[in-house]
């Protein structure tokens, strides 16, 4: 299953679906980085609204993506973590520390826009 990655201006938006396997996630990570390099995006929003479970592997992958995109001068924001999923994550000590988070796509884009504006001014 492929994760759709859309381009909106300087921002990439990726929407993760529910039944994603570990392999799909790995493929997504490569594809996303590819995109980041090719499109020189400044920001990436990864929407995990559809994920009903975010376990150690999923969290680690997201952290890695955030780190790797930062090395490329882009910021990744994770949005759409469900309340129950957030609860389970912190129980496991998976806090996505150092990774920016926002409530949903709207908030995520607003954050990136503000950031871009601040950089320009």
């Amino acid at each position, binding site marked *: 299953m492929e994760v759709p990655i859309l381009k909106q201006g300087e921002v990439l938006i990726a929407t993760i679906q529910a*039944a*994603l*396997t*570990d*392999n*799909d996630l790995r493929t997504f990570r490569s594809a996303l980085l590819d995109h980041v390099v090719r499109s020189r995006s400044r920001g990436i929003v990864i929407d995990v609204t559809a994920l*009903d*479970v*975010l*376990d*150690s*592997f999923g*969290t*680690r992958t997201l*952290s890695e993506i955030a780190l790797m995109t930062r090395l490329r001068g882009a910021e990744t924001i994770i949005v759409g973590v*469900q309340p*129950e*999923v957030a*609860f*389970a994550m912190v*129980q*496991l*000590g*998976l*806090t996505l*520390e150092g990774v920016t988070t926002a409530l949903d796509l709207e908030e995520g884009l607003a954050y990136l826009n503000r950031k871009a504006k601040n950089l320009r001014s």
Partner: protein
Amino acid sequence: MFDEVIVPISSDLDIVAARQNARSMAAKLGFAPIDQTLIATAISELARNIVRYAQHGEILLKVIEAKNSSRGGLMVVARDEGPGILNTQQALEDGYSTSGSLGLGLPGAKRLMDEFEISSAVGKGTTVTVKKWLKSL
């Protein structure tokens, strides 16, 4: 509803199947949505262990009843005939890393469930049994 389901585990897809099965069983039993997520997450970790370290194994999901009451619960047995764990105590203590590549997911499963048992022998395999009980009304 079936009271017992066995999910063979040998690939990534099976990890997803295992946790989806677990979620629906937990839902039918009456577990609150949040507990369903905790159970599904624990199973995801256990199933992944099997795929990563033993390549093949199975996850048994079973509806259980408490010994001296009719309180219900869900039991999960993750079995494999893989390399086994030399020091289970340490495996539990080492803890899960938030960013590292270590972490067998065992401490995670233990935290999310109510009961946890592990037996493992090097060269023979590993069996992890976890249980979650419905809260008393």
